[in-house]
């Protein structure tokens, strides 16, 4: 224990000396939805980015001693603000890439602009297929995150595994919702079960008063479970409504992961424990390689005073963001420059890398800008303390 902190102090002093060496920082931008009520995902992504940056800077930074530095902006989950923010970030000299946030519609709206201006966008959370599947060549978007193409089949198969044969889809009226609808349709081309009883689009952005009505419609349709694509604000509204019903009127909610991006547990006010709620994930510190977790937690304690892995809210954002910085650092060093086009080319030609989320063999190629695969996807649930725990497959 004592030795560890001693080393940390030495490393810190060392990095301070390097900083003083007039080396110009290399910037990584992050445009997150900080201003959104109760959001935790932007904070979690920022922690992942910052911890990886601390780790790399302690080991001497990039490009022979230049430190990495994080610049953040708040888009409040509004697409128009994100476009302005990213334009502003792109003007920073030596800013290599912008990391994208939770809201798929926000990232989707950035795509034309970033290709026009040749800005690298590293998606740490948004799952809409269109974020990497688009017609821009060469593509400047890379993703270390879930893809709806993988999410939707996993959610639907989870229903079947729970012997729930009839499901309803509850989707947001947005690019994210549409991406999931497309993924579900593809699934049903080859699969018969579970059966769809009803597809409902709910509105977001305004005051959402309709979820209770949607739930009643879903019950009437005969569904045994809801496949729910939503963020924490809508999520907690639905969960609280379901929990307030008599037990025989509650059906399981199989949820996409937007709910994990905010104070979902707190806003749901204990209702979660009253219902059958499962959520899709790609990463859990509880499953990550132990040595990596120990390394990360030592830095977390030093920078944020956090000692318990369970205290990291929105863990997927943390894990993805952490790996994104390492992958970017590899690419920058390989490119030997901060020039965005050269770094982009390097990202397509990275060596294998053992990350926190998985072992990348390698992360990207000229034909695939998605670092995660269907193998990384699993279902989880919230325990009594509000910690997300993987559901182990039945033996």
């Amino acid at each position, binding site marked *: 224990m004592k030795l560890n902190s001693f080393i940390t102090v030495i490393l810190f002093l060392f990095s301070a000396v390097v900083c003083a060496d007039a080396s110009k920082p290399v910037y990584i931008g992050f445009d997150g939805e900080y201003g959104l009520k109760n959001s935790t995902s932007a904070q979690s992504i920022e922690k992942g980015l910052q911890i990886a940056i601390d780790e790399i800077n302690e080991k001497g930074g990039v490009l022979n001693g230049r430190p990495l530095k994080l610049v953040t902006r708040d888009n409040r989950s509004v697409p*128009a603000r994100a476009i302005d923010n990213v334009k502003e970030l792109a003007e920073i000299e030596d800013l290599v890439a912008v990391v994208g946030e939770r809201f798929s519609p926000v990232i989707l709206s950035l795509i034309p602009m970033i290709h026009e201006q040749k800005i690298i966008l590293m998606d740490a959370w948004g799952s809409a297929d269109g974020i990497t599947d688009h017609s821009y060549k060469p593509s400047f978007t890379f993703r270390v995150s879930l893809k709806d193409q993988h999410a939707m089949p996993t959610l639907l198969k989870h229903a079947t595994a729970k012997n729930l044969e009839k499901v309803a889809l509850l989707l947001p009226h947005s690019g994210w919702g549409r991406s999931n609808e497309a993924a579900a349709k593809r699934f049903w081309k080859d699969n018969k079960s579970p059966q769809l009883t009803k597809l409902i689009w709910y509105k977001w952005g305004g005051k959402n008063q309709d979820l209770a009505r949607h739930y009643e419609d879903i019950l009437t349709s005969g569904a045994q479970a809801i496949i729910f694509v939503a963020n924490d604000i809508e999520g907690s509204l639905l969960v609280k409504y379901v929990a307030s019903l008599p037990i025989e009127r509650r059906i399981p909610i199989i949820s996409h992961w937007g709910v994990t991006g905010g104070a979902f547990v707190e806003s749901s006010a204990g209702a979660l424990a009253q219902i059958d709620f499962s959520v899709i994930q790609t990463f859990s510190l509880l499953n990550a390689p132990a040595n990596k977790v120990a390394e990360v937690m030592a830095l977390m304690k030093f920078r944020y005073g956090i000692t318990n892995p369970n205290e990291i809210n929105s863990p997927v954002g943390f894990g993805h963001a952490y790996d994104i910085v390492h992958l970017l650092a590899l690419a920058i060093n390989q490119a030997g420059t901060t020039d965005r086009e050269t770094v982009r080319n390097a990202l397509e030609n990275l060596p294998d890398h053992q990350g926190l989320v998985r072992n990348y063999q390698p992360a990207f190629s000229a034909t695939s800008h998605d670092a995660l695969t269907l193998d990384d996807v699993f279902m989880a649930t919230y325990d009594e303390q509000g910690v997300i725990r993987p559901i182990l497959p039945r033996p």
Partner: protein
Amino acid sequence: MILSNLNILHRFVIFVGLLTLIITVGVSILGYRATLEQMETQLELQLKQDVESFSLNFKSLLVNLESSLADFALNGLVANALVDDIGRETYTDELFAGLKRVSGVNIQVSLVNYRGEVIAGKALPSNLADRLTHIIKIAIKKNSYTLWGISSANGNEFILQAPIVFANTGLPEGALIYRFLAEDLFNVILDQAAGENYFGFVRSFFFYFEDKSLGLKGQLIKSKDEVAGEPDIETSVILPVTNTHLNLSVGLNADRAQFSNGYKKLLQSKIIFGISIFILSLLSAFPLGSLLLRRLTSMQLQASKMIESKQFSERFEIQGKDEISLLAVAFNNVLNRLEYAFNEMGLANKRLLSEQAAKYQAVISQSTNAMLLWDPNNELVEVNKAAEKLIGKSITEIKRMKPSDIIANPTHVIEGINNKNLVKGHLNQLIDVEFSKTTILSGDKPHSLWIISDIREQIAAQKLREEQHSYFERIAHSDPLTGLPNRRMLNDQLIKSIAKAERDNGRLAVCYMDLDGFKEVNDSVGHEGGDHVLIEVTKRLSEIVRPSDMVARLGGDEFVLLLTEFQSDTQCLAILERVLDSLRDPHHIQDKIFNVSASIGVTLYPNDDDEPETLLRHADQAMYLAKQEGRNQYHLFNKEKDFEEQNRQQVLEEFKVALEHNQLILEYQPKVDMGTGDVVGAEALIRWRHPDRGLLMPGDFLPYLEGNSQTESLDWYVISKALKQLNQWVSNDLKLDLSVNISASTIQSLSFIETLLAELTKYPHLPKNRLVLEIIESEAIVDLRQVAAVVRHLRKIGIQVSLDDFGTGYSSLSYFRQLPVNELKIDASFIRDILQDSSDLDLVRGIIGLAQTFGKRIVAEGVETIEHGTLLLRLGCQIAQGYVIARSMGSGEFETWL
């Protein structure tokens, strides 16, 4: 001249004719004019009413448009579209297509983002797109509705915008816009007007509009029909429209000629009637006249004879008593007295002159005005008593004086009346006077008459009136006790200061100040003492604040400081420090010393850029917090804290309702003996079925109740419900203990035992030892000895007592030592990590050892897995609660679970 050649008969006929003519024509003209005037007033009045109702139609149409826009902006799909950049076109076109016309006006709808750029619907007019984008952006930022007018390729257009609030952030992120043509608006109103019959006299309708900020100026006119000549009555009113740079007004006009034609015909008929009367009276005057003049003619003949014969001894014949007879008598008298009269004439003349002189003297001497008559050589010829009094010298002395000895400003002595001047009075005192000068002829020479009146009293009265006026003016705007501005004047100044700060990018602090300890002064030495303190406080404040600042008193001991023209917030706070310092000095009243300090709430503009009234309210709220934080300090207003406080108040309010409306329910979590597998009891847990927020756990609302009497109400509610449940279990032969949580404040209340016994008497067959009271450790116990006595009493009557959440709260060990409880409950937070965390394991082992040593039952909370349970059993803890056994359940479910 011609008349004098005519004889009386002809004259008479002509007079009668003329008289008739004048009367008839005069009456007709006057009548005609009066009617015309009256009708004109009526026409103007009618037109005014018409234009009012015309403008009301306009106003209500604008309101319809505005409320349609507001409704539409609240449509969930509109906000959805705002944040759905890719793909919204799939539904926005259809959404907007449904809105082509509102109240008959053709509408173009646009959705703009926070930058004011159109993202769906109609593009903005290209000639003004940049300018409009900019002003719409500002309006969105201010979250306000606005109406503008522009001139575009489509014509003169109005633009109405409503901000759209993004619910997930609570901030405006875009706006919805209606555009419509001025002409369209006007036509809809005209169509409405066509259906209403009260615009009968109206010939043309006008609609004027002007938006100086966007360069729009125009008018629309609609005339009913083409009438020659200019319409000469016109009236217009301004439309009262809020939130706009647009000046709108509507007008109407009417043709007076059309209106007065009927009256001209009336005049013609009256003139014809007059002429007929004229001719008729001419015809009848001739015979009538000759009859009247017959005797006059004979008198004339007799008189001619007298003159011819020069014989005046003859007298005229008298017949009857009519005017002609009287004339004859008079002639006779004339003849009698003619000679005598000639003799008398000279004498009468003299008497008349002397009477006039006497009147003139009386007027001069009795007048209260001073009068002086100067001859052409400026020698005084006449001086009255009033002059003597005014000048303060005797008449003889005055008569030696020259004009410049009497008047201070001789150059101002000019012909005319009531000129202001000064008279040199007694001891050369200057007297304000009104001075009149007239020239009169006396003995054919021009004399100068001065009339001087003393106006000192009038001036004094005038001055008094002015002073009274300014006094009333002052008390309307200031506080009579301290002379400080009052709330009304503060509000005026606040509005001005905010406007100035906004213009100059300046800062502004609104400081709400309330005196601490002021009530004690009033209570101790009465209101006079209190007034003394208020005046002293005012004096001290006035010494500190700068000329640009303002101190106002709102009443009682509440003051407001309005600080402006400071460079930084630190500078402003330094002023407040000085204020606090100076107010701390003690006050000496009636040989007593009083310490009065101040609590100040501050809100700083532009950080807090709300309406003047809101700023005051914010400062007031901050002052309240300053009081709560211990007085004698200032507190800076903080929106989030404010929100937190409001939140707490809201939960308290709602909780009151929850208690009354049975929104609170109890759930039961079983306690199991892990050694035997028996269910030994249950813990009653409170849940709140909130009508809006769903099912709430204790953690969601208990923290808000802390320190409030509601905690006690809740405890008693739970006890009463739990006893009822327990009683039912007993009647169903269920052998279970029931634990109820009770807060430290409840158990510390003096009537606790008494109230509990009263509750228990409702269930005479209930064994008291089935009830376990769990004292929650999160709150401090003030008097441990008193609580220990209560616990002993409870145990004496058989009730079991437990220490809940052991180890988490205040001084667990001293509670354990001093409170003779039956049971300890180890908090779930220690149990959770015993499998991984050796320090938690040590702690739990210690607590169990402690309990065993003192013979207390031990219960583990939050046991989640079999592994936890096994470990606890090994450590010596038998009884457990937790998810591994069961979560909490409603009473029905609980009984089924058993």
